[in-house]
């Protein structure tokens, strides 16, 4: 995985990571129209903060962390705004499609953890750092994700039969 590049190279390196950044953004936001704006904000923040790299830090997990923090802040802001607008009567966004029934089976809490650990190959400790949770919570969400995917697999097999 790429280590944190020099200031002049980070934009190019971020472009190389765009497919993975867009995939993580899709899992977080679950709204096709919000994916690219979140990716752009993340990359702008990464370019802005690239002058203070920690030695040996890898670019992709660092960018994932930035994106998760940005998304958490935005979610909090939207929630506060909604509460101000109509006294909190507006419902929280539910499950929105990731474009594939298999992935739609994953809950909002388990999907990003599964992506980080099982797909991106990060450790529980790294995933915990990115998501701002404990490694134990990562272990629980990984099991939850596998159960959700297993249930979807069973339902698909039953429908085919």
């Amino acid at each position, binding site marked *: 995985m790429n280590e944190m590049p020099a200031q002049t190279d980070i934009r190019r390196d971020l472009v190389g990571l765009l497919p993975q950044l867009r995939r993580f953004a899709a899992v977080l936001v679950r709204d096709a129209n919000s994916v690219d704006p979140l990716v752009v904000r993340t990359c*702008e923040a990464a370019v802005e903060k690239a002058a203070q790299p920690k030695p040996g830090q890898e670019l992709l997990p660092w960018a994932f962390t930035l994106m998760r923090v940005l998304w958490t802040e935005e979610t909090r802001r939207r929630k506060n705004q909604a509460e101000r607008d109509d006294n909190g009567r507006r419902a929280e966004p539910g499950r929105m499609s990731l474009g594939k029934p298999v992935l739609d089976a994953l809950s909002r809490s388990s999907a990003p953890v599964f992506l980080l650990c099982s797909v991106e190959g990060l450790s*529980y400790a790294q995933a915990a750092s990115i998501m701002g949770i404990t490694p134990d919570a990562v*272990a629980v969400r990984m099991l939850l994700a*596998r159960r959700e995917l297993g249930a979807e697999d069973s339902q698909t097999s039953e429908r085919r039969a």
Partner: protein
Amino acid sequence: MDSLRNAPLDMRLSAFIDEELNEAERQEVEALLIADVNARTLRDTLESADRLGRDAFDAMLKAPVSLDLVRSIKTAAPPRRAISLPEPARASWRPQPSFGVAMVTSLLMFGLGAGAGYMAAERPNMTTYADMAGDPTKAWLDDVASYYRLYSRQSRHLVEIPANESAHIVEWLMATTGVSFRIPDLSAQNLEFMGARLFSAGGRPVGQLLYRNTEGEVIAIAFTKLIAPQAPDAQMRQIIRDDIGLITWQGLQANYVLTGPSSEATLDTLARTVAGII
């Protein structure tokens, strides 16, 4: 992570698949998998779910990335750094005019103001030649961008004089533009010098050196004799015109502009290199 020894079997198996158990726990689970058929079945179910999810996520990577997204990231502005230049010490003289001097100065300023007001009132729609000509810097940049858009799409007719006639290029462009220059060797930046052109931009003769990178994109360096004589301004400015990026700066005797695709993230770095050579 805390020990999972007392956790449910499926959680231990899930962590086992992810290689997150410590050595003692791992050996314990391996022994269980050998002895217990139900444990093996459960592990297989979890692994099957894992594959299903991974395959679906892998397919997401094939979604095309829009060019606008790439461009917006390649052109994201890096943080500005404040540079404080040494300034000459200012004299600490403070005027202390007498009453008479203050009165005379006030009357003089009043007279000048009234005169200017009268002139403006008499000819409110007066247009100067400078107004008619417009901003000369903008005019030449507009033309440089237009020529770049035209020539960068040429394959056989990219240049007028090819790179193998470097000596002639220098002599010819120095004579026509009045700017002395060197042809920068940018092979370390993976740019091949293709040759040169002469054209007119903003009514001025402009010399242009053209390079091609490994992706076939054209990078051009244009220069013209100083447009507005003033103190050299080494500060570079980046301008984006749709798909074209321009980096401009001013030297002692000429104005320069480096032109390339706006998606090229290193134009500013390249311009600094060129400014140090040319």
